[in-house]
């Protein structure tokens, strides 16, 4: 592994951009995979006081390595408390105590609706994916949702085959019309750029492009015509500290799961 802290990969940029969105005072419901790396990087850098919650029931967990599953022993060992799964979903998630839900997905559309269920028709799918797990209710009950996914045309599609969890629906005030008071997806962090919802249409538009990435690259990797905020800027590249902490986290994780 390179120890050069000036060079970095687009995957590292994605995780670091995702980590930066989290605040020290957040109570964050953590999805497995890319979200888990981002949330723990935030905790190990600028947000040491963040409360991380995994759906296995672990509240205030501080793992030193990234868990492979949502319920690794490391999460329970380092948690402030561990509650049952019904309690987690009823009191803590449905009860409205989570500020940020951090999700990934297999497919996303311009309104940040997510599909993790099927590619193709539900009854006769081309690819059967794992399904929603906690995501449908995470997406509706957390105060806001951050999503992190690598950007390509298979994942960023014009139309989802299945809506596993609701983003901004068909846009505009769709969430409010369904009775939801939560904000839905407010950030989408990819390996190329950062999206946020347009204030009126709620379409996800680019507010920041990662250093060295072009609009042509973004267009080539997105299944819809991407719009840009008028003041879209450049994402600051990773700092030496961010890269070092992230690489050490991945290194500890690889050793632990070998």
């Amino acid at each position: 592994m390179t120890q050069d802290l000036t060079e970095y990969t687009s995957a590292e940029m994605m995780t670091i951009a995702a980590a930066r969105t989290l605040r020290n005072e957040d109570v964050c419901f953590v999805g497995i995979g890319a979200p888990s790396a981002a949330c723990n990087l935030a905790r190990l850098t600028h947000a040491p006081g963040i409360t991380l919650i995994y759906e296995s029931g672990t509240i205030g967990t501080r793992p030193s390595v990234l868990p492979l599953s949502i319920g690794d022993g490391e999460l329970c060992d380092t948690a402030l408390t561990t509650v049952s799964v019904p309690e987690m979903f009823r009191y803590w998630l449905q009860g409205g105590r989570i500020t940020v839900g951090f999700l990934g997905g297999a497919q996303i559309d311009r309104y940040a609706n997510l599909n993790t269920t099927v590619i193709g028709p539900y009854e006769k799918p081309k690819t059967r994916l794992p399904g929603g797990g906690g995501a449908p209710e995470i997406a509706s009950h957390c105060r806001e949702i951050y999503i992190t996914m690598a950007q390509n045309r298979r994942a960023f599609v014009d139309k989802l085959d299945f809506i596993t969890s609701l983003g901004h629906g068909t846009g505009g005030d769709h969430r409010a019309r369904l009775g939801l008071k939560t904000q839905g997806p407010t950030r989408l962090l990819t390996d190329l750029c950062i999206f946020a919802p347009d204030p009126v249409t709620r379409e996800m538009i680019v507010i920041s492009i990662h250093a060295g990435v072009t609009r042509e690259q973004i267009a080539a990797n997105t299944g819809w015509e991407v719009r840009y905020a008028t003041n879209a800027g450049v994402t600051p590249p990773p700092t030496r500290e961010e890269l070092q902490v992230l690489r050490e986290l991945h290194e500890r994780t690889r050793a632990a799961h070998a």
Partner: protein
Amino acid sequence: MAHSSHAARLLSLSAAIEECVRDGDVVAMEGFTHLIPYAAGHEVIRQQRKRLTLIRMTPDLLYDQLIGMGCAEKLVFSWGGNPGVGSLHRLRDAYENGWPQPLEIEEHSHAAMANAYEAGAAGLPCAIFRGYIGVDLRHVNPNIRSITCPFTGEELAAVPAIRPDVAIIHAQRADREGNVMLEGIVGVQKEAVLAARRSVVTVEEIVDDFGPRSPNTVILPAWTVSAIACVPQGARPSYAQGYYKRDNGFYIAWEGIARERASFLAWMKANVLERQSGDCSAARVSGARA
């Protein structure tokens, strides 16, 4: 619910499964990543139970194995993947290609299933919660319905309570009277046992006394459990808090074992079918990188 008034009986694993699990049963083997009852599930495979309806929030490798060995005709679940690794290939092969037999699915979210277990334990006919808002599952699963709150008029989601014929779980300890103790990530196991007509609990060890413990430790009194079998390492490759860690290397290796039918069947034959009941904790992780 029809628990007999007498205490759980301590049986061998094979006798416990023989007595409590029948062809055609609705079976819930629970354990949310932690304490997954692998040894008991493998005994169900060895005894060749058929036409089971398998309920589990996260089917995990254990249900991949049961489905691939032809034990199940229906799966009720909310997340069907190999955590952190990828697909459950046997589940997908059954659903997409009907191998080794067609598999009907009933798909929910975690919140729905957690609520449905709790409703089952509470003796209610259905669970009510705020969920499935604006998502497609409600269009493909006729068991996802809605109910109007009589006080506020809010429309809420409703799903049927889960009431298994038999629940199977793994726990850390039982005492000689048959009381069961579990701790750590406790998932929905207490709810599953209380919701079920019969239950089998495998444990790491049988102790004279639970010793010092928090008064809030999860305890299933002996009279809520049908049968207990002592199976050390009975959750491996899942884990038992305080005893052994999750074998993440095996979860990663399963991807290669289960991707093809032939390699899957060879693994099951060598590591489950030809093994003795409950005496195969090393075999259960055979193929993991050293």
